[in-house]
């Protein structure tokens, strides 16, 4: 089934630019429903080559598909000094290797500093 072969009311929007894609991602998080994954051929061609974004500490980053451990290694964060929450839930340390960031995730990595 090609994209143009399905009725208009069944089509989901093909996000033409990253901003629209991000907004759709956020809306998905709010609704607790998944607009993605973009499997099958429904969107084939319309989104090819697009990067989907994860908002980490307020900045959109191209980390879709990366694990928490990969992100921490890439940014030089010591896993022993952080707490990581995704969409308002803490990610247990034991799951850093297996938890994959997905498009539309809002993530906060708290890096603790000393003093008290």
């Amino acid at each position, binding site marked *: 089934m090609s994209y143009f072969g399905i009725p208009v009311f069944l089509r989901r929007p093909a996000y033409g630019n990253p901003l629209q894609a991000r907004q759709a991602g956020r809306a998905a998080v709010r609704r607790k429903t998944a607009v993605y994954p973009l499997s099958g051929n429904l969107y084939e061609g319309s989104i090819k080559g697009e990067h989907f974004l994860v908002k980490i500490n307020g900045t959109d980053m191209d980390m879709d598909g990366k694990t928490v451990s990969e992100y921490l290694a890439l940014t030089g964060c010591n896993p*022993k*000094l*952080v*707490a990581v*929450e995704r969409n*308002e*839930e*803490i990610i*247990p*340390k034991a799951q850093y290797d297996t938890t994959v960031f997905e498009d539309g995730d809002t993530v*906060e990595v*708290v*890096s*603790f*500093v*000393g*003093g*008290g």
Partner: protein
Amino acid sequence: MNFLEKENSASAENEPRHSSAEERHIPSREEMQRALEERHGVELQKKFAAASVAVCGLGGLGSNIAVSLARAGVGRLHLIDFDRVDITNLHRQQYAANQLGMDKTRALQDNLRAIAPYIEIVTDTVKVKEDNLRELLAGDDVICEAFDHAENKAMLVNGVLEYFPEKYIVAASGMAGISPANEIRTRKITPHFYLCGDGTSDAAECSGLFSARVMLCAAHQALAVLRLLAGKTEV
């Protein structure tokens, strides 16, 4: 030994308003309760009195948090620290010069008793670790992270949020140095995780810890606790 005696001996040289500590009037439980109700309102005071708050780490943050919460009439304070009072603590922590060498749990308990004689104070003179925090904190509603080292802070925050999803943790990161007060703020990271501080001022990199700035951060934490007990979850 405690604040009352110290104050008394100092004033004895001048015009003593009271002849001795024994003759000093310590208000009754009912009087203390009435005074708190007058200030906070009966309903709110009931919530404070019914709460159990753990303070993990009794240094510059923890000792100041505990004093604030004791004054507010929080019903049960759980004080946890393995350390003893050292001369380098006196510039920012709520201990007296005649308490050097005492366990911080014991010294702070004495000082809180002088402020709030009728609240319940439970102490644990242990180091909080990943393998004992579940047992240690099971009876507390809100946990204050008031450690010194970043690794311990992260350990406690992760542990509490993982093991006790129903509890609240109020943590601190970034209060060293002498940067402006207004950089210290309270953030809500998740519905059960509040974080106070400027987020960046590391004690190892900034030139020391200053009482006023550490107290600011402790006050943020104590207020976050009181707001949570009052059912106010926004920051």
